[in-house]
């Protein structure tokens, strides 16, 4: 997944919109999950301010990473765990590979983790001859099919039960079935063998707790518990922002995370893991490693305008309400993160210019902000990205190239607006000229190149024959005459 395909956004979005199976799946999913999540939000005893409280917890954590991360690391070290601070994806992957080689690992079972998608862990392990099995059912389906996730929480929503049935018949050698319980049972049996024989388990981290020195993992299937309990080595990867200060902070955040991710009151399993097994323990891994990943996050942290995005807890609630995501699907975003949060995070990780379509593609309708369990102001961040890109230079990851034509038009406009006579002249020309453009019901349907992009999916109202100031004066005169 570490491959970046953000430049292909427009083409991929068109493909998504033309895929009837995807359209049905997305609309069904959004209609089911989004209203149920909104209803859950309304039922907290803290009242409507509950998401603002969560925002305060996350922003506090992000702004205190300088004290929280050492505290977390020291807690884990004290229990005999190992902590590695990885500056970038290469360092994180190299550390994981070094541990695997030292322990002679041949087979890895993995729980769903966005940051490992981001750093391209699976590919690196497979290149090194180590088999990696994704154990989340959705991820497992995609791995068998050779595809990538299209949703953070429900990675295989774009697959129908028939497709899964054919896939399992081919890859697992079971009789064809399109019955979800039968298919799930087949995966359960196949993966149980993997859990019991794997040498290493890999997980992400939902929200670590600095005060107590634990990471946490959240799942409904139990696959992450299996992956972190049965193999002899467990490596957890976490983006450096995925931590909170105090244990009590979890009381609120786990409720909201469960609401936001799957419209649940509480997720099925939450595990606190603070080290390898103690010597009194009959289960658990001999070695526990935590890899804390920067990979561009400190750059986001350093930017006052974008720091807020580090509050994100990767619940995917913004995907479930987004009208753009709901039409184009997750693959169009071209990276591990999709939807409104993907439009912001991906741009900040891979560079504005490479990912400009993502933040220009969102509508700024504001649904994402209302759905966010930690009330991140996503529309503000999308606008800030557009502004930064338009104003910026191409020499810095956080700046864009700007659009030369747009810049030229704006400069011309500036010149015209300062010269009333010239402006009026240009207006008269435009009013006359627009008669030559194709129009329907008084609206221009196609602009000439290079402006034709604007009318590709919408019509442009014609310039009025009379200016507003003229009409206003006329209206006033008529009004007074009538009195």
């Amino acid at each position, binding site marked *: 997944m570490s491959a970046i395909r953000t430049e292909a956004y427009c083409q991929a979005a068109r493909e998504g919109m033309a895929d009837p199976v995807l359209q049905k799946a997305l609309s069904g999913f959004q209609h089911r999950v989004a209203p149920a999540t909104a209803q859950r939000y309304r039922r907290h005893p803290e009242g409507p301010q509950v998401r603002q409280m969560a*925002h305060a917890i996350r922003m506090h954590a992000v702004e205190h990473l300088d004290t929280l991360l*050492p505290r977390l690391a020291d807690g884990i070290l004290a229990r005999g765990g190992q902590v590695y601070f990885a500056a970038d994806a290469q360092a994180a992957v190299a550390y994981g590979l070094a541990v695997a080689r030292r322990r002679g690992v041949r087979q890895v079972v993995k729980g769903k983790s966005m940051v490992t998608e981001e750093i391209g862990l699976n590919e690196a392990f497979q290149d090194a001859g180590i088999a990696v099995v994704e154990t*989340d059912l959705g991820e497992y389906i995609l791995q068998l099919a050779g595809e990538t996730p299209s949703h953070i929480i429900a990675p295989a929503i774009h697959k129908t039960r028939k497709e*899964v049935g054919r896939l399992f018949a081919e890859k697992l050698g079971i009789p064809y079935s399109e019955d979800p319980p039968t298919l799930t049972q087949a995966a359960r049996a196949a993966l149980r063998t993997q859990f019991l024989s794997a040498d290493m388990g890999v997980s992400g981290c939902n929200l670590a707790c600095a005060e107590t020195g634990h990471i946490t993992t959240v799942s409904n299937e139990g696959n992450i518990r299996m992956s972190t309990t049965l193999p002899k080595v467990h490596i957890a990867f976490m983006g450096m922002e995925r931590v909170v200060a105090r244990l009590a902070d979890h009381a609120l955040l786990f409720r909201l995370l469960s609401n936001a991710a799957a419209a649940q009151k509480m997720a099925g399993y939450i595990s606190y893991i603070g080290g390898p097994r103690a010597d009194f323990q009959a289960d658990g891994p001999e070695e526990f490693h935590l890899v804390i990943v920067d990979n561009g996050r400190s750059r986001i942290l350093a930017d006052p305008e974008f720091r807020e995005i580090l509050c994100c807890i990767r619940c995917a609630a913004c995907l479930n309400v987004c009208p753009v995501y709901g039409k184009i699907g997750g693959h169009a975003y071209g990276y591990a993160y999709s939807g409104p949060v993907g439009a912001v995070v991906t741009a900040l990780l891979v560079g504005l210019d490479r990912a400009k379509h993502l933040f220009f593609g969102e509508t700024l309708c504001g649904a994402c902000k209302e759905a966010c369990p930690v009330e991140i102001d996503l529309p*503000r961040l999308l606008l800030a990205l557009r502004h930064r890109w338009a104003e910026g230079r191409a020499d810095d990851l956080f700046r864009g190239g700007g659009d030369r034509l747009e810049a030229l038009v704006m400069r011309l406009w500036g010149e015209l607006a300062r010269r009333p006579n010239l402006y009026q002249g240009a207006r008269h020309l435009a009013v006359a000229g627009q008669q030559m453009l194709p129009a329907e019901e008084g609206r221009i349907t196609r602009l000439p190149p290079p402006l034709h992009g604007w009318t590709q999916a919408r019509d442009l109202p014609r310039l009025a024959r009379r200016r507003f100031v003229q009409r206003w004066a006329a209206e006033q005169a008529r009004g007074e005459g009538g009195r």
Partner: protein
Amino acid sequence: MTANREAFMARVRTALSAPTSHGRGAIAYAELAPLAVAKRSDAPLELLAENAAALNIQLQLAADPAAAAALIRRIAVETEAEWAQQKALVRWDDALLNELDLETALADTGLPLYRAPLAAPVDTVARDRFHRQLRSAVIGITSADYCVADTATLVLRNRPGQPGAVSLVPSVHVAVVRESQVLVDFVSLYAELAQERRRDREALTGRMTFISGPSKTGDIELVIVHGAHGPRALHLIVLRDPSA
């Protein structure tokens, strides 16, 4: 390793040196504590029953340890084997479960009942034996430290004789809690945990697990299926307080 941590943290400190007003919410972190509202309930068991039903948890009340043991015996007889021909049970070795005397209750069924190793440290022989038993078991029996009524959540911690895998690897999980261990909601749970940590900083232990319902997935067309990887069923037995 240390140099690498230093360089990493130096970058974080530098990044944080720029203050920002963007992203400031309406509430400050320091103001949060008084805003946390714990739910109240006059009938936590009713609240638990309602939420357990919603999560497909089989909840049963037992008047005394013998009644609880009888319930478990029945579950053992009725549950079908999954991974091994021989139906076996594995249980925690802890005070509450010892009180049930399951060995006697199950004696006439002929079903093997294994106990998780209690003696610390657990040596390789004991660990390997436990793992074999764990894989073959169809039912895992545990107690729990707390049960949260509002979310039907069980809280388990790893202690000697209490490996978390007993609640995970067998096909069916049976948990036994005392009525006095039932808390109303998550806010109360975290208040209890904080209280415990004030007495013992390592009260959480290296592994703490919250369990709300049997294993489930909705990854194929959002159809909910129980038993994705963990237990396909969860039986919760609440031992009534003697005064009740």
